[in-house]
C-alpha cells in the first residue's frame, strides 16, 4: 500500500512526469530527491512566483535586485548595503532555540555571500498568547536562540517586533532580517564561471542534519504527526559561522573567489546546481571528497544534507592551495569537491558510480509554476459589513490595559538579551521607532524598521499591507533617514486555498502600490506558505524590512527620552478619519469581535508625513510616529521614557485609540512654536501625570510600571 516515492517526497504526479520529461527517463533516487526539494514551495516559489513580479524593483541606487542571496543598494562614496529577510517558522516550532538560532545563521550567510560584513540583525517574531505555558516556552526559547547565536557569532541584534495572538500558537512566526556593509569593489555574486575552476566546500562537516528538511518543514502543513520529524532538527554552531565569516571576508579581500554560494535548503545539490546554472555552466561533483561527519552516509544524504555553516566557493585551480591554506589559518575545514564544466549538466559521482546527471538549470528554471485559484474568502463580507463597537470612555484605564499588552509593553526583556552595541555603530538601538547606525568615517547613517500587523491584514490585506510600508517609512524617517529600499517576508497560510491566495495577491498589490507611492524599490524577500495548523491558517502576515539612508545623519537624532518639562507636544497629520478602529490594538486588547474594514491609507499624506519627519529629525528633540495603540500609547511612550507628565488638550475619547496612519508626535521647546505648518498643539509636558482632562489622568509612574511589567509578569 506504500505510496510512490515521489509522493512521499511531497511531489505531485504531474511534477514527477515533468522530471521524466526533462531527463527522458525515470530519475535515479538521488535525482528525485534533488528535484523534490528544489521544486518544493520553499525553494521554487511555485505558488507565488507568478505574483512577485508585481513589486517595483528598480531605482538608480539598486545594485542587485531580487534573485541573488541578498539585495544590494548604493549608499554613495563607494559604500554598498546588502540586506535580506528570511523566515524560520516551522523549525522554530519544532525546536525554538535551534530553529531561531539556525535562522540567524542562515540569514547571515546570505549577507556575507555577497561580499558584505554582516553588521546587524532584526527579529520580527510572533507567538500565541503568553497565558499558555507552551507559548511561553516557544517565545523564550526563540529569544534565547537568537541571542545565543547572534551574540556568539558577533553580529548585534538592533531591534525587531513582537506580537502575540493565538492564531500563531501552533505556528509561531520567526523572521530575521540582516544587514551588511561592503565597499563596491568587494561585491561578489554566486555565478560559477570558467571551465576548470574548482568548487570548494568550506565550513562544517556534512552530517545527517535536516535531510529533506526544506520540503518537509517548509512546504507541508503541520499536524500531530510532525513530532515524528523531530530528528531532522539542525543544530547551529555560531563559532563555526564566525570563523567562516572571517575566512570568506579575507578570501574576498584577497580576490580569491570567482563566485560563492551559501548552502541552505537542499545543501550541496542546491548550491552546486545554482552556482553552475547562474553562470550558464555545468559542474562535476565528487561526493567522496566531501568532508562528512558520519562515515556511512548515502549519496542522497550527502547531497541533501542541510548541515549549517557551509559555503561553496568557486576558485581558480592556481589559487586552490592558497584558499586551502587560508581556510586552515581560520581553523575551518575545506575540500575541493567539484569542477566547473561547459555544461549544461550537473554530474554527481559517489564511490565511482554516477548518482545524478541532470541539466543544472532544470532544478530552478524548469520548476513548476502554479496560477492557483484566487477567491475572496467568506469571512470578508461579514467582517466588512460590521462596525467595531467599543466603549472607550475610561481613557486612563484603557490606556493602562494597552500598556499591559505584551506587544505594546516594554520589549527590553527581549532586547537586553541581545548584544545591540557591537561594532560601535548603534546610534539608536532597540526601544525606539527605527534603529539608526552610523557608517564610520562618513556623515551617513543607516536606519531600519521591521513592521507587520497580521490582524489588520486579515481584515484588509491590501490596505493593511500598504500601511506596513508607510509605517516602516515613517519609522526610518523619524531618525532622519530617507526610505531607500525594502525587503519583505510574506507569511501566509495554505496557498491551495483560494482565500489564502486572495489574501496573498491583495497583500502584494497593497505593498507594491505603497512602494510606488514612496519610490521604494523591493530588492528581496521571502515567501513562507503553509503556515496552518490542523486546517486553520494564520493571519496573512506580511512583514516588511525597510532600509533608509540618512545623509547627513542628524547630529543629535530625536529620541523618545528627550521630552522635558515645559516643552509643547504637537501632532502632525490628518486627525479626522473614520474606520481606524478596525484591526486596531485597542479592539484586540478589549476583546472586541475581529471585524470591520480598516480604512485605506493615503499615499499623498504618507509622502508628506515622511517629508515632514525628515526635516524635523534634524531639529526636534522628540519625534515619534503614532502606531499600535494610537495617540494615547504614543504619548505615554514619550512620557514614560522621558520621565515627565503631559497636560493634554480635550478630544473625543475614541480618538485617543484610533490608529489613523501617517501621524507624528513632535516635542519642541515652547519658544520654537509649531514645528510644521500643519502641526496642531495637543499638549504640554509638565508634572507627573498623563492628564486627559475630563477623561481623567494616570500617573507616569503607574503607566511606566505597567508598561515595564507587561512581558516579565507573564513569564515569571
Amino acid at each position: 500500500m506504500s505510496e510512490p516515492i515521489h509522493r512521499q517526497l511531497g511531489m505531485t504526479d504531474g511534477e514527477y512526469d515533468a522530471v521524466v520529461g526533462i531527463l527522458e527517463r525515470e530519475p535515479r533516487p538521488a535525482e528525485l530527491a534533488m528535484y523534490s526539494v528544489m521544486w518544493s514551495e520553499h525553494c521554487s516559489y511555485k505558488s507565488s512566483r507568478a505574483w512577485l513580479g508585481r513589486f517595483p524593483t528598480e531605482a538608480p541606487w539598486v545594485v542587485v535586485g531580487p534573485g541573488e542571496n541578498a539585495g544590494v543598494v548604493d549608499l554613495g562614496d563607494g559604500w554598498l548595503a546588502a540586506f535580506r529577510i528570511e523566515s524560520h517558522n516551522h523549525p522554530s516550532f519544532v525546536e525554538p532555540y535551534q530553529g531561531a538560532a539556525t535562522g540567524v545563521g542562515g540569514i547571515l550567510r546570505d549577507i556575507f555571500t555577497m561580499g558584505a560584513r554582516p553588521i546587524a540583525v532584526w527579529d520580527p517574531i510572533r507567538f500565541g498568547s503568553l497565558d499558555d505555558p507552551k507559548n511561553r516556552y516557544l517565545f523564550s526559547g526563540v529569544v534565547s536562540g537568537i541571542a545565543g547565536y547572534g551574540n556568539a557569532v558577533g553580529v548585534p541584534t538592533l531591534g525587531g517586533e513582537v506580537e502575540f495572538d493565538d492564531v500563531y500558537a501552533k505556528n509561531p512566526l520567526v523572521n530575521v532580517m540582516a544587514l551588511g556593509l561592503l565597499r563596491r569593489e568587494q561585491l561578489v555574486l554566486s555565478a560559477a564561471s570558467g571551465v576548470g575552476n574548482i568548487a570548494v566546500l568550506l565550513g562544517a562537516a556534512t552530517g545527517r542534519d535536516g535531510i529533506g528538511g526544506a520540503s518537509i518543514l517548509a512546504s507541508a502543513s503541520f499536524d500531530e504527526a510532525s513530532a515524528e520529524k523531530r530528528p531532522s532538527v539542525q543544530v547551529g554552531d555560531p563559532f563555526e559561522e564566525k570563523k567562516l565569516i572571517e575566512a570568506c571576508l579575507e578570501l574576498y579581500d584577497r580576490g580569491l573567489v570567482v563566485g560563492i554560494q551559501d548552502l541552505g535548503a537542499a545543501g550541496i545539490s542546491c548550491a552546486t546546481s545554482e552556482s553552475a546554472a547562474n553562470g550558464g555552466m555545468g559542474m562535476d561533483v565528487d561526493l567522496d571528497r566531501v568532508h562528512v561527519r558520519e562515515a556511512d552516509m548515502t549519496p542522497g544524504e550527502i547531497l541533501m544534507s542541510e548541515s549549517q555553516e557551509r559555503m561553496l566557493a568557486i576558485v581558480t585551480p592556481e589559487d586552490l592551495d592558497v584558499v586551502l591554506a587560508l581556510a586552515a589559518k581560520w581553523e575551518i575545514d575545506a575540500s575541493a569537491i567539484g569542477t566547473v564544466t561547459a555544461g549544461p549538466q550537473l554530474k554527481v559521482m559517489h564511490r565511482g558510480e554516477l548518482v545524478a546527471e541532470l541539466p543544472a538549470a532544470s532544478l530552478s528554471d524548469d520548476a513548476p509554476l502554479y496560477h492557483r485559484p484566487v477567491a475572496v474568502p467568506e469571512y470578508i463580507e461579514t467582517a466588512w459589513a460590521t462596525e467595531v463597537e467599543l466603549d472607550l470612555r475610561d481613557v486612563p484605564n484603557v490606556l493602562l490595559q494597552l500598556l499591559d499588552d505584551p506587544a505594546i509593553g516594554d520589549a527590553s526583556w527581549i532586547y537586553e538579551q541581545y548584544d545591540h552595541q557591537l561594532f560601535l555603530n548603534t546610534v539608536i538601538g532597540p526601544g525606539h521607532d527605527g534603529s539608526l547606525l552610523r557608517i564610520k568615517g562618513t556623515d551617513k547613517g543607516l536606519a531600519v524598521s521591521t513592521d507587520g500587523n497580521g490582524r489588520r491584514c486579515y481584515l484588509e490585506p491590501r490596505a493593511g499591507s500598504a500601511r506596513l510600508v508607510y509605517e516602516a517609512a515613517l519609522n526610518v524617517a523619524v531618525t532622519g533617514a530617507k526610505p531607500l529600499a525594502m525587503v519583505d517576508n510574506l507569511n501566509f497560510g495554505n496557498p491551495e486555498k483560494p482565500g489564502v491566495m486572495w489574501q496573498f495577491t491583495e497583500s502584494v498589490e497593497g505593498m507594491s502600490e505603497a512602494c510606488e507611492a514612496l519610490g521604494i524599490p523591493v530588492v528581496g524577500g521571502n515567501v513562507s506558505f503553509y503556515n496552518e495548523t490542523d486546517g486553520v491558517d494564520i493571519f496573512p502576515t506580511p512583514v516588511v524590512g525597510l532600509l533608509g539612508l540618512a545623509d547627513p545623519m542628524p547630529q543629535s537624532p530625536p529620541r523618545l527620552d528627550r521630552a522635558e518639562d515645559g516643552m509643547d507636544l504637537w501632532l502632525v497629520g490628518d486627525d479626522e478619519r473614520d474606520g481606524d478602529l478596525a484591526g486596531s490594538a485597542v479592539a484586540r486588547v478589549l476583546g472586541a469581535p475581529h471585524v470591520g474594514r480598516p480604512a485605506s491609507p493615503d499615499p499623498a499624506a504618507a509622502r508628506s508625513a515622511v517629508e515632514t519627519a525628515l526635516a524635523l529629525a534634524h531639529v526636534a528633540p522628540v519625534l515619534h510616529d503614532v502606531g499600535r495603540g494610537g495617540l494615547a500609547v504614543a504619548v505615554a511612550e514619550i512620557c514614560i521614557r522621558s520621565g515627565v507628565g503631559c497636560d493634554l488638550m480635550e478630544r473625543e475619547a475614541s480618538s485617543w485609540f484610533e490608529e489613523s496612519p501617517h501621524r507624528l508626535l513632535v516635542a519642541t521647546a515652547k519658544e520654537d512654536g509649531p514645528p510644521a505648518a500643519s502641526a496642531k498643539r495637543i499638549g504640554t509636558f509638565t508634572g507627573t501625570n498623563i492628564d486627559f482632562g475630563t477623561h481623567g489622568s494616570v500617573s507616569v509612574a503607574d503607566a511606566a510600571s505597567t508598561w515595564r511589567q507587561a512581558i516579565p509578569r507573564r513569564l515569571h
Partner: protein
Amino acid sequence: MKIQVEITRRPGLRDPEGATAARALRDLGFTSVSDVHFGRSIVVEVDGDDRDQALTDVEDMCRKLLANPVLEDFTVEVLD
C-alpha cells in the same frame, strides 16, 4: 535522596562543543583523542524515601523541564 540524571545528545545530532573540545585536546598533544561528546549530569535532591516514587518524579521532571526531548536522551538512577 539524591537522584542522578544523565543527559546525552541524541545520536546523529551535531555536537559543536564536543568537536571543538576534541580539536583543542589534540592541539594540546593528546593526539589519541578521536572524538568527544558533551552531556549534562544533574543531581536532584528530593525529600522523602520512596525510591520508586522519586525515580518516577525525576523522570517526569526530565520530560517536562530538565531535558529537551527533541535533542536529548536521559537516564536516571538513585545515588546512594
